[in-house]
């Protein structure tokens, strides 16, 4: 801690806590004593039962929610400063694309806000959409795309202004299993190509293991980090990875850590049911 390391972490969480109060009374302790360093270029997954505060933690890193205690340092500065400097790219569970804009114009939105000139906006939007393999859909509107394609547009938009860290909040939670696995491959390819740092919230154990360099396991409320699992699977990861022995061992390790943290009980079951429901609902709409 005292010696300045040559590779300063992109994100440093020190004793971060979050409570929700009504009046003077603390009603819920959502997060407690969270310490975590994320190095540049890492792929970190946050996994835990519903209500463990993993999405809250992601928003605290992104300065969308203020912590009740502790310090959040991003690129060596407070989270607020980092947000003002546009260090974050956000991807939510819903794609949050604007129907009144074409796919291309959706990707250009952050570039407009950052005041980039038209030529740069055109070039970046095209590059990013080619990166997510939607180069043929520049002029389409979001509602003309499938759920998986919409989420790829959201990723392209998040990467358009080259943020130093990508915050992804269950980005594939609403997609069917097949699409989700394909998107996992996509996001790994993008991560490897861009070298960006990713903080990824999920409640899918296989997804967390397949993608991450480290899986951060959290306990049920109050949310605490119960274990950090190093994923030493070789890269590039592909379909063979999902069938390797080491992969299964790591999935088991994460599952056991979750169970010890109270993650695989009724709450998790409810969560699984809710997720399934969402998938069904999404299927019905699409």
């Amino acid at each position, binding site marked *: 801690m005292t010696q300045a390391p040559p590779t300063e972490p992109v994100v440093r969480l020190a004793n971060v806590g979050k409570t929700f109060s009504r009046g003077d009374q603390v009603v819920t302790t959502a997060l407690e004593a969270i310490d975590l360093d994320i190095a540049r270029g890492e792929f970190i997954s946050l996994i835990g039962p519903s209500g463990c505060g993993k999405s809250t933690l992601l*928003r605290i890193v*992104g300065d*969308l929610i203020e912590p009740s205690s502790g310090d959040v340092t991003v690129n060596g500065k407070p989270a607020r400063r980092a*947000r*003002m400097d*546009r260090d*974050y*790219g*956000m991807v*939510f569970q*819903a794609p*949050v694309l*604007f*129907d*009144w804009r074409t796919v291309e114009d959706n990707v250009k*939105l*952050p570039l*407009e*806000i*950052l005041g980039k000139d038209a030529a740069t906006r055109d070039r970046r939007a095209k590059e990013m959409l080619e990166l997510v393999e939607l180069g043929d859909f520049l002029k389409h*509107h979001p*509602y*003309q795309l499938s759920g998986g394609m919409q989420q790829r547009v959201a990723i392209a938009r998040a990467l358009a202004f080259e943020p130093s860290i990508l*915050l992804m909040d269950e980005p594939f939670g609403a997609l069917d299993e097949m699409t989700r696995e394909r998107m996992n491959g996509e996001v790994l390819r993008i991560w490897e190509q861009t070298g960006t740092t990713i903080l990824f919230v999920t409640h899918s154990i296989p997804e967390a293991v397949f993608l991450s360099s480290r899986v951060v396991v959290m306990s049920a409320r109050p949310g605490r980090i119960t274990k950090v699992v190093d994923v030493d699977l070789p890269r590039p990861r592909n379909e063979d990875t999902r069938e390797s022995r080491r992969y299964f061992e790591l999935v088991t390790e994460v599952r056991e850590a979750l169970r010890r943290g109270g993650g695989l009980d009724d709450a998790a079951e409810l969560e699984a049911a809710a997720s399934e429901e969402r998938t069904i609902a999404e299927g019905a*709409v*699409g």
Partner: protein
Amino acid sequence: MSAGAGSLATSRPLRPGGTGRARAVRRSAGDYLPPIAVFVLAVVVFEYVLGALGIRSFLIPKPSQIIGALQDNWSSGRFSLFPAAIATLQEALLGLLIGTAAGVLVAFATARWASARSFLLPVAVAANAVPIIAFAPLLNNWFGLLNPVSKALMAAVLVFFPVMANVTRGLVQVEPAALELMRSYAASEWTIVRKVRVPNALPYFFTALKVVTTFSLIGAIVAEYFGGSNTSLGRRIVESASAFKYEITWGAIALAAVTGIVFYLVVVAIERLVIPWAAALRGDS
């Protein structure tokens, strides 16, 4: 946050189309043919049924008599209808303009300042429950019987509330994740208004506009019933009826109906030009 605006809409909620995936169907002439055929058929049936039942023409004249009356009184004579329709349309348009402008302005204020919402909305809801048309004779007194502004203001008052309620809702009911996204870009409040709230409110605005075009005509015509320039649809209806020239009364009503429909279609056309994506979303492009 938006519950107040939601409870404002008078009868049924005025919502823009659902968010189902678009069916990219272009309407062809074939889609318009069935309703037109039904209308023509209804006119023909009326023509013969009224005759067969022996209903006297002063109760309900035959469609052919109404068309005849329209031809005879189109632009000349004591009951000339076309200039009257133009005059009424002008009053309605002026009222639509005033009411819409005021509605949009107040909507921006209520959406911008939560405090404004807390005291403006209850007042607006209460005012909206008043049968505003009852003010028509008073407006005539205030602004002068012959002054078209008195009619336009009646129309404006009717137009104001649906526009205000819907635009407020469109500005306020933005996906929370969209606001988080904008905050992650450190976007200013003004940028959020321009790039998210206003485009989000446009379909709500046009939904309201399609309703209030009719309201504006109703306001103008009813205000005319209580007196005003004789060259107006309302006066033509009242006077031809008291002169027992019912086929002219019906002609004026038919003209008012056609004016209303044309007015509505113009708004629909503008909507398709301004927000083509919204129509595509509804699947009726």
